[in-house]
């Protein structure tokens, strides 16, 4: 049982609404499309409303309006952010070089953080961890070697349009099969996750809603 809802009247109503919508979604599985489509619209509307609420209540209010009202002259960074947001909103009517500034800043910052983090937090430490050190266990050495071979074969499998001999062709074929094997394993994980979700929803109907907990 999910236990996400309590026993108050509001929680009881929420349980009934959730149960009815769950049944509607399961009805879509059985071929009932009209009400299912309605429930999808409901989800989209609720998600949009929730996002707006989060943005207003937890971002714009406490992180922008309140600091600016408390000390308008002391936060030039926030005024700069407001100017960038206004520029983005007015992009259709502004010259292209000016309109491109907010998107460029956003994309550049995102790429810089993601790339810098990937190098410092993943690439370098993982290369360091992959180096075989004297005194390590034989199992770790073999595991590292197997991982290196598989990585190499899969990378070779991505070679397209490059002239290659028999050995490289065989390696690329093996790499593609290994890639397929990896994707198959990943899909197996996904199947397990989704099945657990389906069983959990059924458990919600049987346990939380109908009160037939085992």
């Amino acid at each position, binding site marked *: 049982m999910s236990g996400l809802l309590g026993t108050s009247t509001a929680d009881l109503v929420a349980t009934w609404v959730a149960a009815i919508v769950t049944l509607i979604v*399961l009805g879509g599985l*059985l071929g009932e499309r009209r009400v299912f489509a309605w429930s999808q619209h409901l989800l989209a509307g609720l998600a949009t409303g*929730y996002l707006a609420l989060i943005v207003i209540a937890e971002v714009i209010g406490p992180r922008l309006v309140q600091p600016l009202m408390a000390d308008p002259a002391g936060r030039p960074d926030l005024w700069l952010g407001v100017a960038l947001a206004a520029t983005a909103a007015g992009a259709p009517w502004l010259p292209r070089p000016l309109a491109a500034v907010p998107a460029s800043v956003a994309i550049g910052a*995102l790429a810089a953080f993601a790339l810098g983090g990937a190098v410092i*937090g993943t690439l370098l430490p993982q290369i*360091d961890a992959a180096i075989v050190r004297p005194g390590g266990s034989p199992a770790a050495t073999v595991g590292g070697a197997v991982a290196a071979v598989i990585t190499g074969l899969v990378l070779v499998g991505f070679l397209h349009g490059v002239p290659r001999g028999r050995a490289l062709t065989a390696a690329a074929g093996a790499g593609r099969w290994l890639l397929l094997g990896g994707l198959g394993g990943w899909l197996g994980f996904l199947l*397990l996750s989704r*099945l657990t979700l389906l069983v959990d929803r059924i458990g919600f109907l049987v346990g939380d809603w109908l009160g037939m907990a085992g």
Partner: protein
Amino acid sequence: MTDRARLLGRVLPLVLVVALAAAWPLEAPSWLRLATPDAGAAVSMRTALDGLPEDPIVLVGFDPDIGTYAEIRPTVRGLLADLLARDTRLAFVSLTPEGRALAIAELARLRRGEANLARLVDLGFVPGAEAGLVDLARGLAPTTPDGALARTLADEGMAAVDGVAVIGGNDLGPRSWVEQVRPRVDEIPFVAVTPTILLPEVQPYVTGGQLAAVLATPRDGAAYRDGLDLGNLSRLAEERGPSTVPILLGLLAAIAVLGQALGARVLGKVRAARGRDPA
């Protein structure tokens, strides 16, 4: 599509759903127990939590995905109850709207379960994805700066934090925390609970020592929950884990559908080969 195939397409899912509902209350036989005999991940998690100092503060990065939360929910609740049973103070933060919704629901559940509210603080939703994580590493801002815990976090930021527990599943999971926060803070343990689908992503961080412990499969989670000693806080843990009998039924159904598709292709090829035979 024939009428028979159309009818089967509608009836079979109904049969599956009814079968799963009928199997849900069933007690799993011993051979279907989830808890793995190899409790390495559970032991690592317990060791990491044992290593926390007295009266620690743990920052909980709560960003699971709604689609996979059902899989990790019992383990997440077990971990939160375990941390509270160890007199840990918990600070919740989310970087995705989905994670924030689930964090609100879990905080409400902890309040209903009469957890010690002085040991909980809500840092709310932090926008900005990776930039938001970097911002977190520079300072923490509780949504309501009331109480000693909130004031400590507001004054000292990440320096007051003794450990980080990441509840993953969404875009900003353990990998993002390891990449953006870990290099910017002192040596504190990072632990994680993630759905199985993230296992290939997080396992290298465990092997490389960047994550102290990860519970990433239902079996690891069950092994961890089996070893919990929560005392009177057991009310905060989930009463029952995932039902394994209906999951097994579903897996068998999936294998049957896959086998049927493969079988139909093989049968088609055999028939085509026979048709070409000059008999």
